[in-house]
């Protein structure tokens, strides 16, 4: 029966007992984690042992880490008969041991002795450590990707990011032939994506925190662990990042610790400030809500909650109604250790740095100029309280000198708009009449570059819904409305608005109406980042979606000289074109000011989501209707590195440059069309081959030549006959002429 036995053995081998073994495995008590070695105990002989242990136990229980005398062991030196100066203490659990280490480490036992506590396992580990010094292997230098590589694109294209469904795509945008997807990734973000202000980083938001990406390969660069982060804000020079989460920070036990992570002190806060380069957490703040709102109202968070100075040196935080706290970077310490107490303060805005300021600063920093650059400036406003009028203040910082203050009456709301070069500050003041029934609007414009900061006032009868400075310009545009529906929005209601352009009249130094465009529905002004061109859009409406493209210097050529207005005031304003992007929700210029992108985001509605790109004249270049399209973002560009002279030189020789580009274009076009023609030819050939094949088959199927082909041939013959007749007539005429 030998074979049988063998079979039986095999069977036994096959049975896998591992699961049962795992289940009934005896769990060894392997934890030495609850054992602590207390060093720095007086050296004693055996007679004093009991006394000492009692004393030590007392010390421990005083600090809330009780131990029993039985659980303490004194190791003895057998030669001398004395203790070795340390004892071993066993706690109930590793947690108790950890607590004891926390409270007892460094505890003074008496004047000579001070406890130092270590885990038994640690001592074991360190005792076994290899003592020989090993030269650490120097990490090979890894060339990091250039974070601004996209600027070196030979065709000078811009990039944009789109977020659709779960997919984020980075596109190149240039001439039609050069548009392509640079990178795409599924589930790149959980909420949305955001560019840093100079375009270096792309931020994605996830449940655990924020992640920054960059470089040509879009590798992950930095992580900021802020769980459930919802909002983020970069500092203007991309050195710092502010994140916000609705849920207060919780640091669970055993959470990772380190400079990049929240510590228990941060618990309960919502706002975190991070250093982008190191990834370190700088400071956290609780979020503040405007006071005086009743709790039932949904509290609106002001975002960005922290206002960065344009040079990244300071960040201001407003505690509404009380104070402005300005913190210094990178230490995030309160400047001069005190906040600026301003009763009732609501909003603060830093004065942006103009190109001039930046140059001056660079010069000063390089020691080329003694002229100190302009100090940072901030503007804030306080509402009317009791008998005090509302007040707008310009404050210099860090010297804290008040430069200008203006009192205002009957104010219901103020908004501060800095021109992007820091030349002007416009305060849009919503004022109510004495009866408080109707609201009208004043624009108080501070001339920041002029002596004593004169204030120019533009009074308007209507309510201003949107205000926008021309970048680098002395003009602004406003949208105003006197529509009775204003203030009670309803579905299907599109407000009637007027759009007006104002410009600084050089000689007189006041702002004068350039032109007014009545009876519009536009509610959004988008200036081209280079100025001059402006788009008026009707966004967020279900019935209207018009885009109007305007040029404010139509008579000027591109030489760059903005001549004094020789011609009539306001005559340079020219309507270039009108577009329509149904259900548009956003409009954004590209950084070069050549293209405008409009998008209909699925976050707002689900009708015809997608995006379109227009040129500055209002010609639609591309349009994509995509389900679940969410976000369109141009990648910002940093400031140009060319000096003023170089820019001027380019402008002067624009014709030469453009010729070069024209040639390139022509070459490209013929190239592309050749490719396209080849592709089409291939398709046509395929089709024709298939058709011929079909016809042959049809012929064999029917056994006769296809009927349908014949009439066509006949037609062709007929045409030929007609031509013949023509020629005959001509001949006759010739004969007559002879």
């Amino acid at each position: 029966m030998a074979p049988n036995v063998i079979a039986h053995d095999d069977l036994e081998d096959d049975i896998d007992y591992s699961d049962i073994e795992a289940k009934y495995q005896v769990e060894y008590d392997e934890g030495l984690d609850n054992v602590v070695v207390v060093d720095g105990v007086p050296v004693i002989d055996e007679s004093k042992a009991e006394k000492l242990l009692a004393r030590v136990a007392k010390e421990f229980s005083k600090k809330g880490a009780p131990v029993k005398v039985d659980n303490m062991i004194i190791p003895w030196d057998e030669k001398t008969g004395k203790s070795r100066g340390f004892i071993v203490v066993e706690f109930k659990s590793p947690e108790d041991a950890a607590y004891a280490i926390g409270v007892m480490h460094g505890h003074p036992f008496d004047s000579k002795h001070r406890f130092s506590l270590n885990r038994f396992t640690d001592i074991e580990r360190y005792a076994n450590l290899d003592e020989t010094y090993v030269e650490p292997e120097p990490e090979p230098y890894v060339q990091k990707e250039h974070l601004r590589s996209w600027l070196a694109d030979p065709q000078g294209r811009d990039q944009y990011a789109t977020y659709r469904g779960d997919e984020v795509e980075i596109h190149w945008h240039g001439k039609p032939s050069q548009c392509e997807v640079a990178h795409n990734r599924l589930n790149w973000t959980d909420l949305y994506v955001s560019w840093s202000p100079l375009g270096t980083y792309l931020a994605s938001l996830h449940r655990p925190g924020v992640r920054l990406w960059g470089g040509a390969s879009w590798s992950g660069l930095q992580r900021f662990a802020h769980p459930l982060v919802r909002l983020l804000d970069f500092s203007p020079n991309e050195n710092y990042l502010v994140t916000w989460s609705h849920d207060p920070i919780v640091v669970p036990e055993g959470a990772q610790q380190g400079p990049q992570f929240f510590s228990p002190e941060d618990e309960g806060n919502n706002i975190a400030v991070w250093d982008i380069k190191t990834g370190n957490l700088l400071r956290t703040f609780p979020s503040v809500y405007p006071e005086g709102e009743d709790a039932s109202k949904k509290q609106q968070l002001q975002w960005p909650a922290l206002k960065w100075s344009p040079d990244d040196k300071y960040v201001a935080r407003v505690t509404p109604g009380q104070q402005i706290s300005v913190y210094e970077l990178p230490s995030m310490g309160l400047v001069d250790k005190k906040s600026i107490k301003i009763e009732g303060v609501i909003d603060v805005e830093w004065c942006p740095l103009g190109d001039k300021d930046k140059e001056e600063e660079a010069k000063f920093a390089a020691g080329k100029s003694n002229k100190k650059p302009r100090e940072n400036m901030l503007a804030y406003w306080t509402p009317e309280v009791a008998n005090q009028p509302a007040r707008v203040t310009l404050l210099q910082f860090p010297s804290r000198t008040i430069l200008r203050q203006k009192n205002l009456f009957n104010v219901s709301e103020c908004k501060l708009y800095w021109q992007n070069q820091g030349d002007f500050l416009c305060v849009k003041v919503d004022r109510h009449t004495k009866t408080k029934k109707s609201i009208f609007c004043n624009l108080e414009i501070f001339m920041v570059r002029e002596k004593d900061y004169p204030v120019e006032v533009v009074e308007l009868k209507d309510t201003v819904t949107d205000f926008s400075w021309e970048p680098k310009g002395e003009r602004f545009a406003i949208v105003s409305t006197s529509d009775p529906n204003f203030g009670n929005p309803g579905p299907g209601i599109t407000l009637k608005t007027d759009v007006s352009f104002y410009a600084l009249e050089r000689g007189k130094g006041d702002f004068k109406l350039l032109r007014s465009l009545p009876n519009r529905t536009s509610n959004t002004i988008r200036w081209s980042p280079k100025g001059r061109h402006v788009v008026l859009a009707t966004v967020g409406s279900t019935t209207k979606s018009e885009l109007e493209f305007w040029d404010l210097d139509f008579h000027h050529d591109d030489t760059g000289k903005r001549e004094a207005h020789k011609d009539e005031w306001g005559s340079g304003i020219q309507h270039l074109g009108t577009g329509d992007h149904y259900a548009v929700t956003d409009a954004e210029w590209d950084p070069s000011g050549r293209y405008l992108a409009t998008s209909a985001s699925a976050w707002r509605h689900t009708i015809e989501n997608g995006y379109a790109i227009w040129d500055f004249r209002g010609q639609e270049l591309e349009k994509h209707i995509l389900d679940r399209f969410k976000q369109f973002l141009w990648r910002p560009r940093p400031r140009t590195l060319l000096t003023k002279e170089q820019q001027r030189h380019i402008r002067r020789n624009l014709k030469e440059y453009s010729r070069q580009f024209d040639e390139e274009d022509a070459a490209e076009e013929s190239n592309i069309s050749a490719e396209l023609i080849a592709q089409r030819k291939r398709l046509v050939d395929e089709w024709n081959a298939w058709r011929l094949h079909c016809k042959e088959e049809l012929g064999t199927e029917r056994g006769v030549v296809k009927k349908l082909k014949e009439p066509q041939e006949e037609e062709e013959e007929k045409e030929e006959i007609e031509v013949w007749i023509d020629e005959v007539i001509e001949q006759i005429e010739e004969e007559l002429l002879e």
Partner: protein
Amino acid sequence: MRPILLQGHERSLTQIKFNAEGDLLFSASKDSVINVWYTHNGERLGTYEDHNGAVWTIDVDSQSRFLVSGSADNTMRLWSVQTGKCLYSWEFPTAVKRVAFSDDDEQVVCITEQRMGHQGAIRVFKINREGDGTDQSEEPISFFNPIGSKAVVCAFSYVPNLIITGHESGKVALFDYKTGEEVLNNERAHMDVVTDLQLSPDRTYFITSSKDKTARIHDTRTLMVIKTFSTETPLNSAALAIGKPYVLLGGGQDAMSVTTTSLRQGKFETRFWHKIFEEEVGRVKGHFGPVNTIAVSPKGDCYASGGEDGFVRVHHFDESYFRAKPYGDIEVEQ
């Protein structure tokens, strides 16, 4: 391209057809009347009145002698094109959804609706062309019930005995009507109900439209998808242009949701797509409801579209349409 507006129907159009010469246009509508029009000026030549239910479908033979129609009154009728008289009427238990002549005009295929316990059925009748046409046989030469998803559109293929069917599930199939067997099918031709099926002049390929927002060109023999045209709206009809490499697609949002959407959202245009490059070349606006049916004149000089709005719009192509060569000199076989 100024269209001629044909206002002869009180309800939405269901199918329109040109005759072989393209001088007459037949239109069927839910108002139970069939109209015939002169194509060149839009004058109404006459009507075919006898149905008392929505006329779902019509077809005309290649000699413009007989017209066949199917209606919701459960009858299929044969008409004299010239006199407008009803020559013969076949009665079925359910509505007739689709009729089509064979290319030799000897046979007619019809699909009846699946309803009231009756299965959807395909019948093929022999048409007696002798005499005045009133002497027709009541019995079909073939009768079968396709298994699975019901057939909604059909046509004779160029292969004898084979008919092409389009189904509710999006399936396209070939049936041998002699045996009633499914010879070949393409289950995944469309993702949703097939709404129209039109043949090329030689019947070797055909175009289908579907609610899945695409139209597709199929090879009749293999049922392989040759071309796909993806739009952003459900399609009700697709037609092949004659003489030019275009296809015409029509559709729009469901009639049910039309009242709740604006005109431009409804996408009620007729779209011209390039047959081979699968890209849109143009659109023709006009209807204020979904386009239900499109037909191209066999001469290729005009096309007509019938809409949910009850109008037929006949468009005669401009000179520029024939002269234009948007893709340069390419020779495309029909």
